[in-house]
């Protein structure tokens, strides 16, 4: 376990993330241009989709159907469990609980990539169809949590004589359209489709850009993530001790569930580890705008701090090796 932790801590990804946090702590003027951030995230998502598509072209439907089923199941279970814990134990408001649950139901692409890199580095690479599972998990988690929030709010306002000035909730069709046509979804799914269509032969000429440069550019992106997480550290006090514990314990519960379901679906140790990480991770690209638009009463300080300043660093540093150890035990 310690060896695994050491490998993870000494990766350029973790260290450049730490550098970003450090830069914020010492109040350095270091900042990445916003356009570079946007450019890098487009590159990473597209590369992930393309590579996943090429790998997917080697997989059969029989191979992927079990893992796909448990992934969708996770997408439904994790937002519900997160919502219940926040609402019942944490006593958060309906909007705040649903807003945070949407982040934990969805998946963080960068944490996913870090898990992929980790299992490769310890010699247990995951199945090639993992990026397909990533796209499957991205949407339902957000949708389920937003639906819980919207229905609960509607029920509450009915029982307490809705006031006439209340703004009507946004139609679900609109929200679904936004999520399905969002940047991350379009690039991931579009990349997958292109990857499957061009196959190995079409992949070869573009491989130097999308695979050769991938780790280096990811390292720069992690620096930016560190800066973003570092600037949220001040909000930890506002988030409170419950959210701090939630941001660490909920991922472990979801990660264990993910690893168990993965092993039930017959996945490899590497595959289980990555699936567990997906279940444990909290989205901070797709979820924040969706929650902001749909549940504007939810406090962004809570969900952004939990996803970005607590859960993301925890998964990056300790979570992924823990899910690996859990997967090793479950898969044997």
């Amino acid at each position: 376990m310690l060896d695994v932790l050491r490998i993870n801590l000494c990766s350029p990804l973790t260290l450049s993330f730490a550098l970003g946090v450090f830069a914020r702590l010492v109040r350095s003027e270091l900042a990445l241009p916003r356009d570079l951030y946007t450019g890098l995230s487009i590159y990473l998502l597209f590369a992930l989709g393309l590579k996943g598509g090429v790998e997917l072209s080697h997989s059969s439907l029989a191979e992927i159907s079990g893992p796909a089923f448990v992934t969708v199941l996770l997408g439904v279970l994790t937002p519900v469990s997160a919502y219940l814990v926040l609402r019942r134990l944490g006593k958060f408001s309906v909007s705040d609980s649903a807003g945070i649950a949407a982040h934990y139901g969805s998946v963080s692409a960068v944490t996913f990539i870090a898990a992929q890199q980790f299992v490769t580095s310890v010699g247990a690479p995951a199945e090639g169809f993992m990026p397909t599972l990533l796209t499957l998990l991205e949407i339902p988690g957000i949708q389920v949590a937003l639906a819980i929030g919207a229905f609960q709010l509607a029920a509450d306002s009915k029982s307490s004589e809705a006031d006439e000035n209340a703004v009507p909730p946004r139609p679900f069709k609109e929200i679904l359209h936004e999520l399905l046509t969002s940047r991350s979804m379009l690039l991931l799914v579009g990349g997958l489709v292109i990857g499957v269509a061009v196959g190995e032969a079409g992949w070869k000429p573009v491989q130097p850009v999308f695979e050769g440069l991938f780790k280096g550019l990811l390292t720069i992106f992690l620096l930016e993530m560190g800066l973003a997480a570092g600037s949220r550290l001040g909000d930890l006090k506002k988030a409170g001790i419950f959210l701090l514990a939630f941001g660490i314990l909920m991922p472990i519960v979801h990660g264990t569930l993910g690893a168990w379901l993965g092993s039930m679906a017959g996945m490899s140790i590497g595959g289980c580890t990555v699936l567990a990480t997906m279940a444990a991770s909290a989205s901070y690209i797709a979820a924040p705008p969706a929650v902001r638009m749909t549940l504007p009463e939810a406090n962004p300080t809570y969900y952004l701090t939990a996803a970005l300043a607590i859960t993301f660093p925890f998964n990056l540093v300790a979570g992924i090796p823990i899910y690996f150890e859990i997967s090793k035990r479950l898969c044997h």
Partner: protein
Amino acid sequence: MKTVQLCLVTVIAESILKERLIQDVRDAGARGFTITDADGEGSRQRRVGAILGANVRLETIVSKEVAEHLLGILSAEYFERFAVIAYLSDVSVIRGEKYV
């Protein structure tokens, strides 16, 4: 040179509202608009866009009726729950027919 008195509506809002605001401006009857990225701080402080961009500043020159209609839409849909400010100023423009 002959100028015409019109209203300049300026809206500064969190950037995730950009597409919705554009739709609202069109619905209100504006003939055109300008959008720029903006940074700043207000009573609601942090934006969700900390990682995706902060604010947008939308400007449109319209007739008084359209301006009031637009402010009505903004106050019904956004003021209570989002970080949005909007204000009117009188401007003198040439080619006034372009805007109404």
